């Protein structure tokens, strides 16, 4: 969970008005059951409110407008129709927000860009055995194999996975510099070669940029098959597709994701022709998995310090993994710049 946005208490309420207008049009009656109207997330980097069959999302206040336009157009592009859930049209005159722009996609609430999407049931946190690891791997492989669309309204930016790792370390430095484990996390970070944090010319693959199981929902618009789809294009873009496998890889390496589940995930990715890894998957995964471990550990220190609590058991495992990373450098390469 990211930090809440304490200065914008009205964002969920204003988003709810917009979601209602998107679902029914302004001034029309709403017969949605009360249980279908709710705030699904309220964080500084994303507030999501459901209204019946759709959700409205307020993106981060510092969202880059050009990049956002390109990412939104990507999600709507026919070439990823079976991979990403596509955006829905905004209401023409959203109450409590600025009007729709010329391209029908620009609107904002409290200075944050707003989008509307179909609601999809997420992965059941109570039922790990039913988690769709193979389907997740297949969707990522399909995404990575899709040639980047040419005719987007703005150039598709780099995917943000490496930036997010660096930002997490910055946040730890800023808010938990004196935590006893901070030095360990920084030592692990220094084994991540800075060269892998910037896209190389070969890294022109479509990437999700922040893949985890929370980024999968069922597409309820197809009530028979209810296929799984990827959501959240806020970090998507061009890059090295190994970063999209890095979080499960990091959890496997930490001993938290069982080996058989990791094998299923990687096997399904390969079977679907995913290009991120070769014969030895760790040739490409080693550095991104280190970075995701450091990111997770750094945010654990930042959040536990902010909440005034000790690290929990899973967070301790990530720090222990940072200890092993720090003692096992990658090949000689320039250290990470920060």
């Amino acid at each position, binding site marked *: *969970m*990211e930090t809440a946005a304490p200065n914008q208490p009205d964002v969920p309420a204003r988003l709810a008005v917009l979601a209602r207008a998107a679902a029914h049009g302004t001034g029309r009656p709403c017969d949605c059951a009360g249980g279908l109207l709710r705030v699904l997330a309220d964080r500084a980097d994303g507030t999501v409110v459901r209204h019946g069959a759709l959700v409205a999302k307020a993106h981060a206040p510092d969202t880059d407008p050009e990049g956002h336009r390109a990412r939104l157009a990507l999600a709507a592009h026919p070439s990823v129709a079976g991979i990403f859930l596509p955006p829905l049209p905004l209401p023409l005159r959203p109450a409590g927000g600025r009007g729709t722009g010329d391209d029908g996609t620009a609107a904002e609430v409290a200075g944050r860009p707003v989008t509307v999407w179909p609601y999809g049931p*997420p*992965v059941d*946190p109570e039922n*790990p055995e039913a*988690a769709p690891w193979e389907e997740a791997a297949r969707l990522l492989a399909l995404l990575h194999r899709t040639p980047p669309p040419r005719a987007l309204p703005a150039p598709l930016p780099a995917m943000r996975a490496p930036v997010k790792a660096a930002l*997490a370390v910055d946040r730890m430095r800023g808010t938990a510099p004196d935590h*006893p484990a901070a030095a*360990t996390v920084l030592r692990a970070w220094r084994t991540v070669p800075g060269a892998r944090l910037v896209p190389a010319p070969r890294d022109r693959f479509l990437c999700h940029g*922040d893949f*985890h*199981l*929370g980024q999968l929902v069922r597409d309820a618009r197809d009530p028979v098959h209810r296929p799984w789809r990827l959501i959240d294009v806020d970090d998507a873009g061009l890059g090295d597709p190994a970063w999209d496998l890095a*979080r*499960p890889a990091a*959890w*496997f*390496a*930490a*001993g*938290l*994701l*069982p*080996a*058989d589940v*990791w*094998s299923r995930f*990687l096997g399904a990715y390969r079977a679907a022709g995913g290009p991120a890894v070769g014969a*030895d*998957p*760790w040739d490409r*995964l*080693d550095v991104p*998995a*280190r970075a995701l471990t450091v*990111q*997770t550990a750094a*945010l*654990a220190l930042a959040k536990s310090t902010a909440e005034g609590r000790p690290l*929990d*058991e*899973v967070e301790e*495992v990530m720090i*222990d*993994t940072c*200890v*092993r*990373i720090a*003692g*096992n450098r990658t090949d000689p390469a320039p250290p990470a710049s920060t």
Partner: protein
Amino acid sequence: MQCPKCHAAMHTYNRNGVQIEQCSGCRGIFLDYGELEALTRLESQWVQQAPPAPPAAYPAQPAPAAPAWGAPQHGGHHGGHHRQRGFGRMLFSS
């Protein structure tokens, strides 16, 4: 006792009757003479006592490759508790 590597304090833990010292800073572990052998003996006893694996639906797969810094893979050691909590975390961005 001080860690010979990073000089932070070492804490003593008892693992199945074996005293080990772990550093609070770098988390290195200090073993006295004979303690490694004692731990190895205990582990082999644990493996022998473990119940037979349930019949697999598929032929047993070789363990997947892991990075040099990966956690030691103890088939089954990381039981349901870690797994369940870890799973919940994998549903969230971090």
